[in-house]
C-alpha cells in the first residue's frame, strides 16, 4: 500500500505528517528548525528521499537545508544567492527606483529528473538554479533582464517569485509567477522569458490590461495537460489552454462580498488540480484583499469539476462559523492516490486533509504555528 508524506512549512519550523494510503491516522514529526520561518519544503520527483527546505529568519537571513533520507536528518547547504551582474532597480511601492535586494527563498522546485537540480524562486523576484544539490546557486538572469523587470513592483507581501512549474512533456518549457508582476514563460529552459498575461484584468493598476503588473497569487498545472494552467489571481480565477498565450476568467459563481461588483469576485491565494481529473480544480475563496479571511467566518473549499465557472462549496468537516484564518499561496497540495487526497494549511495552524477529493475534511493537526506551505508526496 502507498504511504503519504505531507511536508509543512510554518512560521516557526517544519513538520512532517505521514500516513498510510487510507489517510485516516497520522504521525506528526517536528518541529524541524524550530523558531525559523520555513517558507517551503519540497521533495525531488526523481528521488523521494531528497528534500529541500527554505529556512529563514529576520535575524540571520537565509539558509537552505537538504535531506537525503526523507527528512530524518538534514544538512545546511549553500545559501549564497547573488544576482547576476549589476542588479539594477525595480519599482518600489511609491513608484521610485529601488535596488534589487535578496530577502528569502519562497519556493523550491526540484527538477523532474535530477535530484541535484533545483530551481529557487526568491524575493526580490528572480529565479535561481543549483545543479550540485544546493551547494551553489546561480541566477537565470534572462527573467529579470528580458525588459520589463525595472517596472515590476512588490505586492503587500513583498516582490516574490512564488510559483515555478516545469512542463513534464517539454523539458525546455517552464512557467513562473511573481507578485505583483504576473506570469512568465520560458521555452528554452530558463534562458529567455516572456510575459504571459494577456487576458488578465486588474482594476488596481493604471492600465488594467497591462503587459506586467498583475498580482498573480498562484498557478497550477495537471501534468497530463501542461498547456492548460489554472491561476488564482489577486481577484479572479483564470485559465489558459494555450500555455499562457491568453487567459479566460472562470470565476463563475464563486462568492463575492455582498453587493460588490463582479470585478471583486474570486479573491484567494491557493489553487490546485485533482491528480486524477484534470478539469477538477480547488480554490479557497477569501473575502477580500483588505480582510484576508473567509467569507462570513465560514471556511469553504470550492471545487469545480468543469475547469472553472461552475463551483460547489465543500464544507463537511470544515469550520462553518467563527473561522478567520487565511490559506497562503503555497499551502495547498494534492496526492496521487486513486481517490485524490487534497490538503491545505491555515494561518491558524491547522492542516486539513480530504481523502475523498474534497467531499469530506478533517484536521490532521490543528495547533501548529501559522502554515506557510504544504506539499505532499505519495510514496510506494
Amino acid at each position, binding site marked *: 500500500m502507498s504511504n503519504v508524506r505531507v511536508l509543512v512549512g510554518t512560521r516557526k519550523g517544519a513538520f512532517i505528517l505521514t500516513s498510510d494510503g487510507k489517510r485516516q491516522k497520522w504521525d506528526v514529526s517536528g518541529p524541524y528548525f524550530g523558531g525559523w520561518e520555513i517558507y517551503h519544503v519540497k521533495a525531488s520527483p526523481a528521488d523521494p528521499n531528497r528534500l529541500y527546505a527554505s529556512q529563514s529568519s*529576520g*535575524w*540571520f*537571513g*537565509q*539558509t537552505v537545508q537538504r535531506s537525503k533520507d526523507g527528512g530524518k536528518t538534514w544538512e545546511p547547504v549553500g*545559501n*549564497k544567492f547573488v544576482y547576476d551582474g549589476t542588479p539594477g532597480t525595480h519599482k518600489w511601492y511609491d513608484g521610485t527606483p529601488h535596488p534589487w535586494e535578496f530577502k528569502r527563498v519562497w519556493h523550491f522546485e526540484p527538477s523532474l529528473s535530477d535530484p541535484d537540480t533545483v530551481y529557487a524562486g526568491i524575493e526580490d523576484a528572480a529565479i535561481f538554479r543549483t545543479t550540485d544539490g544546493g551547494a551553489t546557486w546561480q541566477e537565470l538572469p534572462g527573467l529579470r533582464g528580458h525588459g520589463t523587470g525595472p517596472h515590476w513592483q512588490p505586492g503587500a507581501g513583498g516582490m516574490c517569485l512564488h510559483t515555478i512549474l516545469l512542463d513534464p512533456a517539454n523539458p525546455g518549457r517552464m512557467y513562473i509567477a511573481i507578485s505583483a508582476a504576473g506570469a512568465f514563460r520560458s521555452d528554452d529552459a530558463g534562458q529567455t522569458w516572456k510575459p504571459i498575461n494577456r487576458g488578465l484584468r486588474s482594476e488596481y493598476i493604471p492600465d488594467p490590461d497591462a503587459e506586467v503588473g498583475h498580482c498573480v497569487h498562484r498557478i497550477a498545472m495537471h501534468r497530463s495537460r501542461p498547456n492548460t494552467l489554472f491561476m488564482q489571481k489577486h481577484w479572479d480565477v483564470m485559465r489558459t489552454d494555450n500555455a499562457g498565450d491568453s487567459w479566460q476568467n472562470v470565476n463563475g459563481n464563486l462568492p463575492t462580498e455582498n453587493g460588490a461588483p463582479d470585478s471583486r469576485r474570486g479573491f484567494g491565494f491557493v489553487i490546485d488540480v485533482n491528480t486524477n481529473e484534470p478539469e477538477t480544480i480547488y480554490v479557497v475563496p477569501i473575502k477580500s484583499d483588505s480582510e484576508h479571511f473567509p467569507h462570513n467566518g465560514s471556511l469553504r473549499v470550492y471545487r469545480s469539476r468543469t475547469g472553472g465557472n461552475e463551483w460547489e462549496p465543500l464544507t463537511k468537516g470544515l469550520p462553518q462559523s467563527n473561522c478567520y484564518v487565511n490559506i497562503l499561496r503555497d499551502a495547498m497540495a494534492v496526492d496521487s492516490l486513486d481517490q485524490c487526497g487534497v490538503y491545505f494549511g491555515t494561518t491558524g495552524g491547522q492542516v486539513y486533509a480530504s481523502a475523498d477529493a474534497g467531499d469530506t475534511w478533517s484536521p490532521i493537526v490543528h495547533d501548529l504555528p501559522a502554515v506557510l506551505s504544504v506539499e505532499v508526496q505519495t510514496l510506494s
Partner: protein
Amino acid sequence: MIRVWLPAHLRTLAKAGTEVEVEVNGSVTVNSVLNAVEARYPMLQGTLRDHVTKQRRPYIRFFACEQDFSLDSPDTPLPEAVASGKEPFMIVGAIAGG
C-alpha cells in the same frame, strides 16, 4: 585562541556549543574574528553579514568587554582581553520580533 559566543539559533545551525574557539592570525578585529568563525563553520556564512558586502546583518550586534562594537569599523582592533581569550567576543541577536 579567541572565545566567541553564538546566538542560540546559530549554535543549532553550526552544531556547536554556546562558546566556540577560533584562531586568528594577525590583528584581532570584528572582521578577522568573523572570518575565522565562518571558516570553521561555513554554514554560518551569510547569517552574520552579507556574503558579498560583508555588512553586518541589521539584527546582529557585536559586544565585548561591556562595549558595543557593532557600529565601529569592523577593522578596529578589539580589546586585548578578547585577543588573549580572557573575555569572549559576543555575537548577539537583537531582542525583537515574535
